[in-house]
């Protein structure tokens, strides 16, 4: 019995009126963990009950601790009839199981009901006492840290990166069980929420076990997804990168250097333009491998057989009783994949190109949930594919790796993509934590081709690197990772999207699957063509953070590729775009072409200016420069029906550089070119990207606004063409962006980062686009990079005075050279009872200590029960200054959220654990709730508030690497009903203001800047 879980129910507030007669509520609480339930007393006739219960103690296995959530149910006592449920709170206690994360969960949680939404709040305290368990055959993996962040978390150092971990668990979906016909929607929703919570817990535990087996202590880049396969079940799967992390001692902290670079070290890489991808369909012997830009189809063995081979192999592996080391090597050999998108310095050597694989499967019922072999085999097969693609690119590893699915009825598209790369092998061996000499300069090394020049996997134009001139680089580089911070970049980057719709006939079963898998390679090809064109149009030569999503609906397929375009200084300048007519005879046509050509040239010129792309003029005369005359000419095919034999051999190069040639041979092509040109430029003052950092911007200020936006478009026109659909889809995306620019205009100058678009076809004729991103303000005038490490040794003046201002208790986390971050000294501020109007998370500037230990003031928590009075018990001098606004009333901690791994202007001092929450909301009074928009608006706001509440209860003040992985909306306006599922995740952290940096604006509110900015705008 290795653990004791203790929970205490303190109070409730803002409860709903449950008794119409008295306008009051007789509330009590049930606390459930596993199969044990405790109850509080009934607090009669109050909407703000004070239970102040005893400590409810649960004695449980740590396995259960990992799997189960603590379930808190608030009920209304009814003497005569059944008690009415008010709502529930599920508390994931995983963060308490790791000594380095949170030590107590305490705070106000929204009471959530799947039908009514949030109904008041409840104050709960949770603690865990873990006993040591030396059983080596244990099933639990307490202590393994999980991070959603796809880089080495700040305040940690990677001692070793072990490699890929994956797991999946399956179950029947409660929504489809027979019992669902007789139970209430509420009961069904709760069963589902609970099940998924359990499954995620189990999944995390199992992954943790694998990590321990590999000798690691953490999972970075943890990506968990749900596949709601309907009748055939529910799959929860996760991938991640196992690492051994060391907590950084504060003295050496490289994470303190600057507030702008999300990762002060580390390169992320990228590579070449061409994308390797494959599509396969089970039970169909068509397997494609596509290499763009020239389309090569490689027939391969039937998908089915690959799966069968891979399955047993893996099982075998698992059963092997090898030493941990051997196993690790084996595992690494098995799938050298990394979910990281940015890396410690020296980790990434070269980058080969994007590798991706898709496979179309027909879902069938999962017969034995304990042996999810089929699903395992499917993924195994895809991963094998990826691995072989990477090999083809001369790479032994895949970085920036991710997996996704798209399900429509019984058809499922599994996708995986990543970036083939060569990594420094030393990093993966134990103990090699020292840096080694870079063979090539860090600013361009990753661009150098990893493959054999004479045996290229795809036709690419190679030149000598424009920076070091020693090694070859490709003409274009596509990657799924972030831009390495040390990469040499010219100008700024920008978001580039390719959008595509393809109609398909409605069909069933294998016919349907075949139709889809036949369409896939063309879509992939078209998307890449679009990306390439748009890249050229912006005069850039590389893409980072490339993410291609293909979503399947009953009668169409949607493809959306997003990436951040960058001009890498090491790569050659892109050529222009040439328009060529097929029938050069006609005069009018000729004229038309000239006009278009002019427009394209103008756009390119304008973009160059916009993104400040002024590469240094090529000094080809450089002595001994081995740059050969680039003879690069690629062709762009207008539509997939043309194949490579229709090659235009016109020599249309303009200037020195060869240009892309666009052939205009039919109206389709004309429209494509038009659409190419209709992408509206971002308004002045705005930049956008889908990566962590915006290339070319690094002086962030503290304004941060994370947002989620959802749009659903109904296609009412029954007979749409592909072209028409494309236009609609493109407009939908473009209008969304325009809308963001308008809404966030008060934050100018600002950059939308990590713009994450997700498309879905929830029903026939509906297109849903979900976007999550963060807008961050930056300082326009300060162009020079503020890299100087300002050591935290510069104290603030006026210490004594400021000390007096310390009005509330601070928890001091003195993280001296010891690697642990437990608060070693606690300071309670003097003093007066907290004025109710004090801002909870007032920011604190702190001074330094003579002993050069930096000290961090943990977030101040304004909770009555954490308040301690007394004097400062420490021999060191502390200077604290508190900025606070004068709000009328406030007792809620401000929690910032961002999809990035950092918050500008702050330093993360502690990771409190992973946030992974799943909610269902349903309504039977859609109209009354403001229609489907009102319903979803409320739900998203509720989800945000629940995330914030959980983070605050862990003692945190921010969520980093936040993402909304699922937002599935089903509506039936005729029945006045709607249901929505949302899954969000992120890392709860404590961050403090970066020292010595503009102490004036307070960190306290994200909103402050944006809000006041709004004021100005109005």
């Amino acid at each position, binding site marked *: 019995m290795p653990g004791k879980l203790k929970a205490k129910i303190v109070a409730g507030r*803002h409860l709903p009126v449950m008794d119409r007669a008295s306008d009051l509520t007789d509330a009590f609480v049930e606390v459930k963990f596993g199969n044990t339930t405790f109850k509080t007393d009934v607090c009669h006739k109050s909407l703000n009950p004070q239970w102040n219960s005893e400590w409810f103690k649960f004695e449980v296995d740590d396995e259960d601790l990992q799997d189960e959530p603590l379930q808190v149910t608030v009920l209304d006592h009814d003497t005569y009839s059944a008690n009415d449920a008010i709502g529930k709170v599920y508390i994931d206690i995983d963060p308490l199981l790791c000594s380095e994360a949170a030590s107590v969960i305490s705070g*106000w949680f*929204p009471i959530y009901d799947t039908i009514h939404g*949030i109904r008041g709040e409840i104050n709960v305290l949770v603690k865990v006492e873990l006993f040591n368990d030396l059983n080596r055959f244990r099933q639990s993996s307490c202590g393994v840290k999980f991070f959603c962040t796809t880089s080495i978390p700040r305040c940690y150092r990677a001692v070793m990166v072990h490699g890929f971990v994956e797991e999946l668990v399956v179950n029947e979906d409660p929504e489809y069980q027979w019992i669902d016909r007789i139970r209430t929607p509420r009961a069904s929703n709760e069963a589902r929420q609970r099940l998924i919570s359990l499954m995620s817990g189990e999944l995390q535990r199992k992954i943790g076990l694998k990590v321990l087996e590999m000798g690691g202590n953490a999972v970075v880049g943890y990506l968990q997804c749900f596949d709601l396969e309907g009748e055939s079940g529910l799959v929860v799967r996760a991938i991640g990168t196992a690492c051994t992390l060391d907590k950084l001692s504060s003295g050496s902290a490289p994470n303190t250097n600057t507030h702008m670079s999300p990762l002060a070290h580390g390169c992320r890489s990228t590579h070449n333009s061409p994308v390797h991808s494959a599509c396969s369909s089970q039970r169909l012997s068509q397997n494609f491998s596509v290499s763009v830009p020239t389309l090569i189809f490689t027939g391969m063995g039937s998908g089915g057989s690959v799966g069968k081979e891979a399955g047993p192999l893996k099982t075998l592996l698992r059963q092997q009783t090898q030493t941990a080391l051997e196993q690790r090597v084996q595992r690494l050999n098995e799938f050298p994949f990394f979910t990281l998108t940015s890396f410690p310095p020296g980790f990434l050597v070269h980058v080969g190109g994007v590798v991706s694989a898709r496979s179309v499967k027909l879902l069938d019922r999962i017969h034995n949930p304990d042996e999810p072999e089929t699903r395992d085999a499917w993924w195994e097969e895809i991963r094998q594919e990826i691995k072989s693609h990477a090999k083809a690119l001369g790479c032994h590893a895949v970085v920036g790796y991710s997996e996704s699915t798209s399900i429509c009825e019984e058809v499922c598209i599994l996708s995986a993509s990543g970036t083939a790369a060569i990594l420094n092998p030393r990093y993966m061996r134990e103990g090699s934590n020292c840096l080694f000499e870079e063979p090539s300069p860090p600013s361009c090394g990753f661009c150098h081709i990893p493959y054999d020049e004479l045996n290229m996997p795809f036709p690419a134009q190679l030149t000598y690197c424009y920076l070091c001139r020693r090694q070859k680089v490709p003409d274009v580089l596509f990657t799924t990772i972030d831009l390495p911070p040390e990469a040499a970049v010219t100008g700024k980057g920008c978001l580039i999207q390719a959008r595509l719709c393809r109609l398909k006939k409605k069909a069933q079963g294998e016919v349907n699957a075949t139709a889809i898998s036949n369409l896939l390679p063309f879509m992939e090809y078209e998307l890449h063509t679009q990306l390439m064109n748009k890249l050229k149009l912006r005069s850039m030569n590389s893409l980072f953070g490339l993410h291609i999503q293909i979503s399947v609906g009953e009668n169409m397929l949607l493809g959306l590729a997003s990436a951040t375009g960058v001009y890498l200084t090491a790569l050659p300048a892109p050529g222009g775009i040439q328009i060529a007519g097929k029938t050069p005879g006609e005069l009018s046509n000729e004229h038309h072409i000239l006009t278009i050509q002019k427009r394209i040239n103008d756009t390119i010129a304008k973009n160059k200016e916009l993104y400040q792309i002024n590469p240094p003029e090529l000094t080809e005369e450089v002595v001994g420069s081995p740059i050969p005359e680039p003879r690069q000419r690629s062709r762009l095919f207008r539509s997939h029906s043309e194949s490579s034999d229709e090659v235009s051999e016109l020599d249309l190069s303009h200037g020195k550089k060869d240009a892309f040639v666009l052939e205009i041979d039919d109206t389709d092509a004309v429209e494509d070119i038009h659409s190419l040109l209709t992408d*509206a430029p971002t308004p002045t003052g705005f930049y956008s990207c889908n990566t962590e950092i915006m290339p070319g911007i690094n002086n962030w200020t503290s304004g941060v*606004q*994370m*947002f*989620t*936006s*959802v*749009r*659903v*478009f*109904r*296609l*009412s*026109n029954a007979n749409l063409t592909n072209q028409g659909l494309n236009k*609609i889809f493109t407009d939908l995306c473009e209008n969304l962006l*325009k*809308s963001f*620019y*308008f*809404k966030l*205009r008060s934050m100018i100058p600002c950059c939308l980062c990590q713009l994450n678009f997700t498309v879905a076809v929830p029903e026939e004729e*509906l297109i*849903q686009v979900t976007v999550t991103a963060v807008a961050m303000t930056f300082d326009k005038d300060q162009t020079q990079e503020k890299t100087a490490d300002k050591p935290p040794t510069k104290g603030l003046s006026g210490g004594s005075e400021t000390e007096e201002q310390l009005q509330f208790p601070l928890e001091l986390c003195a993280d001296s050279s010891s690697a642990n971050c437990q608060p070693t000294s606690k300071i309670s501020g003097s003093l007066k009872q907290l004025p109710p109007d004090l*801002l909870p998370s007032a920011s604190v500037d702190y001074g330094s200590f003579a002993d050069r230990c930096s000290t961090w003031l943990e977030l101040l928590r304004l909770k009555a029960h954490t308040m301690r009075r007394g004097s400062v018990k420490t021999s060191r001098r502390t200077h604290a200054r508190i900025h606070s*606004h*004068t*709000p*009328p*009333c*406030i007792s*809620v901690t*401000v929690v*910032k*959220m961002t999809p990035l791994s950092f918050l500008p202007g702050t330093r993360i001092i502690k990771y409190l654990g992973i946030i992974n929450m799943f909610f269902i909301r349903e309504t039977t009074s859609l109209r009354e709730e*403001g229609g*489907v*928009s009102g319903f*979803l*608006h409320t739900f998203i*706001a509720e989800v*945000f*508030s*629940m995330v*914030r*509440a959980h983070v605050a209860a862990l003692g945190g003040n921010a969520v980093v690497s936040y993402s909304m992985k699922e937002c599935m909306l089903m*509506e039936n306006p005729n029945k006045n009903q709607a249901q929505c599922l949302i899954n969000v995740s992120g890392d709860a952290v404590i961050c403090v203001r970066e020292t010595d940096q503009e102490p004036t604006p307070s960190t*306290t*509110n*994200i*909103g*402050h800047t*944006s*809000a*006041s900015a*709004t004021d100005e705008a*109005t």
Partner: protein
Amino acid sequence: MTMELDVFVGNTTIMDEEVYQLWLDGYTVNDAVKVRMDGGVMEECEASADVLLSDTMDQYRTFQMCERLLHSPSKLGNQLLFQIPPHRQAMLIERYYTFDDAFVREVLGKKLSKGTKKDLDDIGAKTGVTLKSCRRQFDNFKRVFKVVEELKGPLVENIRHHFLLSDKLARDYAAIVFFANNRFETGKRKLQYLTFQDFAFCAGQLISNWTVGAVGEPADHQRSFRFYMDVDLDKEFLQELKELKVLITDKDLLDQHKSLVCTALRGKTKAFNEMETNFKNLSRGLVNIAAKLTNTKDVRDFFIDLVEKFIEPCRSDRWTAADIRLYLTHYNNSAHILDTFKHQVVWDRYMGVVKSCIFKMYHD
């Protein structure tokens, strides 16, 4: 082809003050979009009408969701649903409770009942305030009234504490509550020239001088808590006011008072003759008002009486505001010199308020 759903939710709730005002003013979404377009916000960010519509809808939805919280502003501070910076919260509350002077003037002193609510469309038509906005303002009055009606302690403080309003706005609400509670007549034609701010000032005077709360908490704790409040006039004081009648019933006292006042005024104003002539009339008027205040009906007519019995006669004699000031000051002070007049404290408490009310209500 239609947009089935369109939402934008920020972690920090995004609110545009201009749109908030349009929402408060009862504009429909489409009207608000038109106003915004005319305001030139489109050029600012190269936006299109669609973008503006979508933004306006989002904000309207947000405001509607917030409205429930605004009904009890203290909840806004510790609710978890919206992350709104404190200064924005204060703005939201303040603006939500702000009212149109034209509107409040119409309902001032009326019973805040369903009956009055039914007349809101007429009031709206008359004042040019949209019905939606009228309803919000009316409901605000009612809500504030309901909450503070039964509370002990100073009215303004109670309002400020429960509704987190600025001092100015809390005072205005105190006036509204006070007028509604005592049902002062303000709608008569003769009172039409008075603005809400005139009445609010008078209400402030009455609250701080004529209520039980005004003299501090009584030592006698036996009395019902209702007496500690300053929503109601001090009944004992009203009783005592009857004693002032001696000033007009006692012939000697009246003459003595008159001569004292006239002596003091002589040569100081052009209106001296009128003052002398009218002294008895005016004095009777003011004292009679005081003596009758024990009747609820007469309390209601307090302002109309002041106008009829004092302000109108003075105005027809073309007194200036300075004349009024001069006259009333001496009228008040001279009573202290009357040796047979024993009710100095009550007199001062009465005249202090009446004086400042008349100063405020006397428009040149």
